């Protein structure tokens, strides 16, 4: 799930300056779970823009999916044609997809933080950095690229204090946890399996996955 944070509403209004006819767009998937772009937050944002004309509010199931966005915007075609700005309570991908689908001025109202694991509502944790070179099967299913602030692929680093991380002193070093898990499984031989540097010829932005037509 993509974890987002709300931008300051006044900042959002500034970005939308000069636009009097507004549509508020929410996301009923990730941003709804984060309570940054659900129907309640869409209503709140409409209140923020009460001094302008809110032509419509809409919650799209997956605004980052251009097919879904295009389908849902057809429901408010008339309002869309008159809108001067769309306020996107979505992740960055969603905001950009909305801009591409509508051709309208879009204001991103959220900051996109990370792809997260959901423990329960309000507790989201980053577990994957989508580096494109996964070593989970060799590290007891703990990603050191993400769980180590330095992204050390062959750890621990010299900064470990006892079992603790140099950066987050209240947390165990992920390499200490990897060691413990491998030891429990009797697989400690794998602890020092060498993981080479990431090949950035394959991992840099912007990434694409385009299927070949068969």
């Amino acid at each position, binding site marked *: 799930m993509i974890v987002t944070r709300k931008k300051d509403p006044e900042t959002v209004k500034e970005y939308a300056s000069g636009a009097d006819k507004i549509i508020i767009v929410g996301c009923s998937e990730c941003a709804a779970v984060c309570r940054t772009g659900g129907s309640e937050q869409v209503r709140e944002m409409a209140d923020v823009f009460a001094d302008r004309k809110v032509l419509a509010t809409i919650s799209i199931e997956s605004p980052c999916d251009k097919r879904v966005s295009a389908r849902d915007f057809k429901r408010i075609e008339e309002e869309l044609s008159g809108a001067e700005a769309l306020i996107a309570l979505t992740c960055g991908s969603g905001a950009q997809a909305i801009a591409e689908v509508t051709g309208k001025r879009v204001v991103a109202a959220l900051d996109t933080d990370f792809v997260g694991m959901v423990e329960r509502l309000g507790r989201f944790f980053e577990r994957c950095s989508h580096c494109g070179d996964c070593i989970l099967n060799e590290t007891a299913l703990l990603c050191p690229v993400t769980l180590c602030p330095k992204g*050390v692929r062959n750890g621990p680093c010299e900064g470990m204090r006892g079992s603790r991380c140099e950066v987050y002193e209240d947390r165990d070093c992920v390499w*200490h946890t990897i060691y413990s898990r491998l030891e429990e499984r009797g697989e400690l031989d794998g602890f020092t399996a060498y993981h080479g540097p990431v090949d950035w010829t394959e991992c840099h932005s912007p990434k694409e996955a385009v299927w070949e037509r068969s």
Partner: protein
Amino acid sequence: MGALLTDRLAYVASIESIDATAAALARIPNEKTLILGEYGPISPLAVLDRVRKSFDGAVLLEIIAKNKNRDLIKSAILTSAACGFDGVLLASGVFTAGGGTAKPVYDLDPAQMLKLALDLRKHGAVPESFVIAVRSASGNGPAELRARWYIGEGADYIALEKGSIPGLEPKTLLVEPVTQA
């Protein structure tokens, strides 16, 4: 393989002023090995000539991965050898150094830096006598296993701030910070 005559490393983490650093280093006994760190605003490469005027011992450059990608790490190793450093101490680098607002790089970790340095030495890009040491933690299983791996792969030494790793004592250097005025 590089070798040092001492297991005590006099460590200058950062160079704020060439004069102040030179003055502090003049008090260090020549039998110690000196390490110049990269945390300050002035590159250690800039002070080596001054240091050599008053210090006859071995001088290592501490290379940290925090601010450099693999190209710059390779350059730092080659440049240090070309400038006359006797070796390098490889480290990941303190995450919060410099205030912590810059984007940390960490393109390579110390194990990957070690492989790079050993490869350069194997192919003659740095002298055979060029010392390659790696900073390590100590006092627990994972740190000790990694330290043994460093030595097994070909590191000349591991460097510790405290403690020891059983069986690796002859290959261990102890880091002792130098106080600057």
